[in-house]
């Protein structure tokens, strides 16, 4: 398991490092994730204090439902973070990570809201 994970957006304006191990990611099929990502929402998470984020002035936040915000690069639109207000945890997208991630999707969630343009996997 990796002791440090690095990643960032497509244009490089926002970069991050996460110290310590990360739990297996989940893939979210909810309509909000699919509208936002144009893809599934694939996230792992860690306590926010373990992140070092550079280029924060390029990081934009959108409150997608009360108490939930999604972070993206205002320059290139890359989806990076998801956070519940008041939580000390910060979710991060797997697609933004430098490889190897050392992680594999462990579960699929919100399958009841899956898109009609693909066959959802079994849980």
């Amino acid at each position: 398991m990796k002791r440090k994970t690095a990643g960032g957006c497509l244009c490089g304006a926002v970069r991050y490092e996460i110290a310590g191990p990360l739990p297996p990611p989940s893939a979210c099929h909810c309509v909000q994730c699919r509208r936002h990502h144009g893809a599934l929402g694939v996230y792992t998470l860690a306590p926010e204090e373990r992140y070092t984020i550079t280029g924060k002035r390029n990081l934009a936040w959108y409150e997608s439902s009360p108490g939930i915000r999604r972070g993206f690069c205002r320059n290139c639109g890359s989806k990076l973070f998801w956070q519940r207000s008041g939580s000390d945890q910060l979710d991060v997208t797997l697609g933004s990570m430098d490889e190897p991630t050392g992680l594999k999707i462990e579960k699929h969630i919100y399958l009841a809201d899956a898109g009609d343009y693909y066959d959802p996997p079994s849980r």
Partner: protein
Amino acid sequence: MVDEGAKPLRATGRCLCGAITLEIRGPLRDVVVCHCGQCLRQHGAPPSYTAAAWNDVKLSGEKNLKWFQSSPEARRGFCGVCGSSLFWEPMGSGRVSIAAGCLDKPTDLRTVRHIYVADKGDFYEIKDGLEQLPHSMRAVAR
């Protein structure tokens, strides 16, 4: 008399916050999942794209649409308010790829293949049995 403006509505869609909405009056291509490194970074996961002729796409809230030139040949369109990924446009083609996730149900679309599988992320497997191409089709947005 021929009514040239009467193409039937094929699909509607919007970004997550609703600042940008779209209507498509014309055919939509089958859905293709792209696994290239650029798509993974920008979407956060491999995106599902359909495609249409630009002339068949009507946008509202276009002032909120931001473009990022991701290569000499193509640019990516996203909502500047909520960050939703909407478009991938091969410049000068008259065509645009549209993220299937932004479309309202029912889409009447189906996923037919995976492209750029040679670059796919290491955090998932492709297990749906659909066609896999190591790189692109000749013209992804045809």
